[in-house]
């Protein structure tokens, strides 16, 4: 079995198994935690509304902090949207999803994907520079932050290298295998580190919003 076959077969199967196992573990572990019983009279019954409202309201910076967080917010949005375009609008990726889900959707031309990937990459580099140059951010950053950055950037870099066939001596099939393996590394790490926000962000925001709404706090 060559490296590409390993990446397309067993490595992918195990990465998906670990991804699903990790996500269900994290979500079930949180959902079934003991909750403090709230004996007070609810101020409002629109808790679902409060949950949705918080999910939306916290997606834009609060006016008081806007100027201070604008840089990271804009770059954050740029790379998240860029990643979404690269992952979900590139035909080979769509075909991978189709092999699992059984259906596909329209793709964007490769040139658009390449531009999105490069913009995403620069945004991520700019955010890393900010993390390294800001004393506060450096102080609160740990291994999880840096490793999560590496496993997010690695598929982008290896994917761009594979598309451009710039293998620093490596053949295309090796580049493709390395790209796949870097994605599987992201899958394996995703449930256990800060990248877990991918599936926890709306759960935690929604919970906070619902609690606030019950207590009559502004969300």
């Amino acid at each position, binding site marked *: 079995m*060559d490296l*590409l*076959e390993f990446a*397309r*077969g067993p490595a*992918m*199967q195990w990465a*998906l*198994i*670990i991804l*699903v*196992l*990790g*996500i*269900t*573990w*994290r*979500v*079930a*572990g*949180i*959902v*079934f*935690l*003991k909750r403090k019983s709230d004996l007070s009279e609810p101020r409002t019954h629109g808790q679902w509304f409060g949950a949705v409202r918080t999910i939306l309201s916290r997606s834009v910076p609060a006016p008081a902090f806007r100027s201070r967080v604008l840089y990271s917010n804009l770059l954050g949005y740029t790379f998240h949207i860029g990643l979404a375009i690269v992952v979900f609008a590139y*035909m*080979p*990726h769509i*075909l*991978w999803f*189709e*092999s*699992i889900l059984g259906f596909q959707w329209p*793709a*964007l*031309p*490769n*040139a658009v994907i390449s531009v999105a990937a490069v913009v995403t990459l620069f945004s991520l580099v700019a955010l890393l520079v900010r993390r390294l140059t800001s004393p506060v951010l450096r102080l609160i950053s740990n291994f999880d932050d840096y490793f999560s950055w590496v496993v997010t950037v690695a598929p982008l870099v290896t994917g761009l290298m594979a598309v451009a*066939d710039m293998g620093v001596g490596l053949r*295309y*099939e090796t580049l*493709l295998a390395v790209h796949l393996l870097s994605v599987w590394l992201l899958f394996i790490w995703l449930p256990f580190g800060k990248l877990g926000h991918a599936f926890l962000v709306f759960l935690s925001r929604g919970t906070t919003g619902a609690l606030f709404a019950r207590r009559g706090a502004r969300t």
Partner: protein
Amino acid sequence: MDQGKTPQTLGEELRRRGMSRRTFLKFCAAVASSMALPATMAPVMAEALAGARRQSVIWLSFQECTGCVESLTRSYAPSLESLIFDFISLDYQHTLQAAAGHQAEEAREAAMKAHWGKYLVIVDGSIPLKDGGVYSTVAGETNLDTLRHVAEGAAAIISVGTCAAFGGLPKAHPNPTGAAAVTDIIKDKPVINVPGCPPIPEVMTGVIANFLTFGKLPDMDHLNRPLAFFGDTIHDRCYRRPFYRRGQFAKRFDDEGARNGWCLYELGCKGPVVHNACATTKWNQNLTFPIQSGHGCIGCSEPNFWDKGSFYAPLSSGRWGSAEGIAAAAVVGTTVGIGSAMLSRARQSDIIKKG
């Protein structure tokens, strides 16, 4: 030239057949360029080839379908390539030789003895190793014994076709005969692989011309394939690549995309990971190749191409087996999650009780 006299060199043979020097030089320039040799090598090659004496070749056919022989010998019209095949002294070849039975085996032994250390061995077909190699024998001798015996006195070996080069179809799972490639068995001789199912005739011509000119095999890649022909992928040189870049893919063999000649990636084309010269050298006298005829590349010049999933599954589709593993992971994950939450609840209760 005396028509009755047996030509001693390739030059004499070509002149006898009315081949002009100009045509011969053009052929040498084409071969030199296809082998990625500098243009200045064309006259050198012409001189060396013209003076080359008949090269003794012993062709061993093992677990094969004769498709490779068909590909190499049945060109559309007589060509210089076929003349080179005519010129080499093919001292042993089951399908093409007139002799049969013991006479054929004796001819092989005689050729080996006469050209010991200098003859070329061409192998097509894989070699069965299981159960002592009994699954393919010729004249009572296993392919394994024949190969070892004949390879002993060979100057070099050319493995023709994917079966000889990598095991091919006979090696496909579950490989009932224990089929192996030539390079799995012969370690002490120069071996070049010319894979393909079948291989491109011009690649064979290039390899033989290179050997006759320089007395050695050409530069090879990590799978022992001639680098000049296997350096690029099919995708690198595919005329449909602009459609790939634009994201225009045929989704069915009879849809509008297929009729417009769009990229066949979605229909399972393996071109991006397959190294061969089909897209440049092409087939049937440089007329066409499978992708041009509307079918994706199946990757026949790569090892184990039979066992790499469906020919019609896109390259980027994963081979993830079944959903059972994922379902089991979800069940285990949920159970572990609930278990850890319960553990946390119990600890919280303890803390509250202790108050």
